[in-house]
């Protein structure tokens, strides 16, 4: 055993020596700041988390009851949203990208009705969602948002720990995803701020603030809650498996 360890150490030293002699590491545009360190002891967020607050930011379930939470939309986006509401009322909901298995994106995935799990690795928190097998990657290495962001479904997320609370900031989101299946629109200027923490041994809370200067007249707040199930397993969710609700010409079908 001792021999093996000795070889192991020798190998490691050799690797370090090679590394030192190699070309200098490429310069990162956003160097990590050593100040942004995770707490010495991270909270226990293991297990599988069930969303208990429903999947409508406009109408979340709080204490078993639905509580209306109207978004402070500006005139332009109010009109856009009204079109979606009217279409749904007429039985012909407007084009919902997820009806064609396109990713829900942030923030919709945060309140998807299927469970999620949290993975902590150095400099990073990953949230894995069962719904459409999504992964959100949150850098906790002190780096900032890149200056020029191409809009993406889950955006660019940076986070840091304030005590046992994970604070996340997400920008760089696409304008063609919706908050929820009522068709509530947002713009590509949407910024999602999250504060995620344990409110009890098996209750995780995500306090969100949406800031969208193109669509909202002010910050819009909402809270999602999750219940821990240590015995649940994450399951497959392949939306393309048997999708009989495609959206064709802007109308979601049931065939």
């Amino acid at each position, binding site marked *: 055993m001792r021999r093996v360890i000795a070889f192991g150490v020798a190998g490691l030293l050799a690797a370090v020596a090679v590394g030192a002699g190699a070309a200098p590491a490429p310069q990162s545009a956003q160097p990590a700041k050593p100040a942004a360190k995770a707490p010495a002891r991270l909270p226990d967020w293991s297990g599988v988390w069930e969303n208990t607050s429903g999947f409508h930011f406009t109408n979340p379930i709080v204490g078993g009851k639905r509580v209306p939470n109207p978004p402070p939309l500006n005139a332009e986006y109010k009109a856009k949203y009204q079109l979606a509401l009217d279409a*749904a*009322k007429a*039985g*012909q909901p407007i084009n919902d990208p997820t009806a064609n298995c396109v990713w829900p994106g942030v923030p919709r995935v945060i309140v998807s009705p299927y469970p999620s799990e949290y993975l902590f690795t150095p400099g990073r928190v990953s949230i894995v969602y069962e719904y459409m097998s999504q992964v959100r990657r949150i850098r906790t290495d002190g780096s900032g948002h890149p200056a020029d962001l191409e809009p993406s479904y889950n955006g660019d997320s940076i986070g840091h720990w304030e005590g046992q609370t994970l604070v996340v900031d997400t920008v760089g989101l696409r304008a063609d995803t919706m908050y929820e299946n009522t068709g509530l629109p947002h713009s590509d200027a949407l910024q999602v701020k999250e504060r995620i923490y344990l409110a009890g041994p098996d209750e995780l809370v995500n306090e969100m603030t949406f800031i969208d200067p193109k669509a909202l007249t002010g910050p819009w707040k909402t809270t999602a809650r999750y219940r821990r199930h240590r015995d649940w397993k994450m399951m497959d969710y392949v939306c393309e*498996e*048997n999708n009989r*609700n495609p*959206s064709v010409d802007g109308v979601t079908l049931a065939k």
Partner: protein
Amino acid sequence: MKLIAKLAAAGALCTALAAVPSAQAHHSFAMFDNQKEVTLEGVVKEFQWTNPHTWVQLMVKDASGKEVEWSLEGASPNSLARKGWSRNSIKAGDKAVIVVNPLKDGAPGGSLKKVTVNGQTIG
């Protein structure tokens, strides 16, 4: 419609039905009339235990005695499995009584609300 009225009147049967969790994950359910419930009795042709939604293809005799195939959309296997369902909960040939919110356009389809198979409650 006569059949539906008769079944709806059978209160004892209705109370035995199991509630199915609503299935609004993947898309809007605005194509279904959630203010209206229709009770269907028929024979299962196929049970599709699939994402993003499960489906029961149910053969139902209409008022004239003609068999009509209904497409009944349920929650995802993920949701149902966590409520105690499995891929074997419903099989081809099963006699089923199913309460649905029907399609608004009148086509033979609906959103599955409650299911009893071979006299047994599911869920």
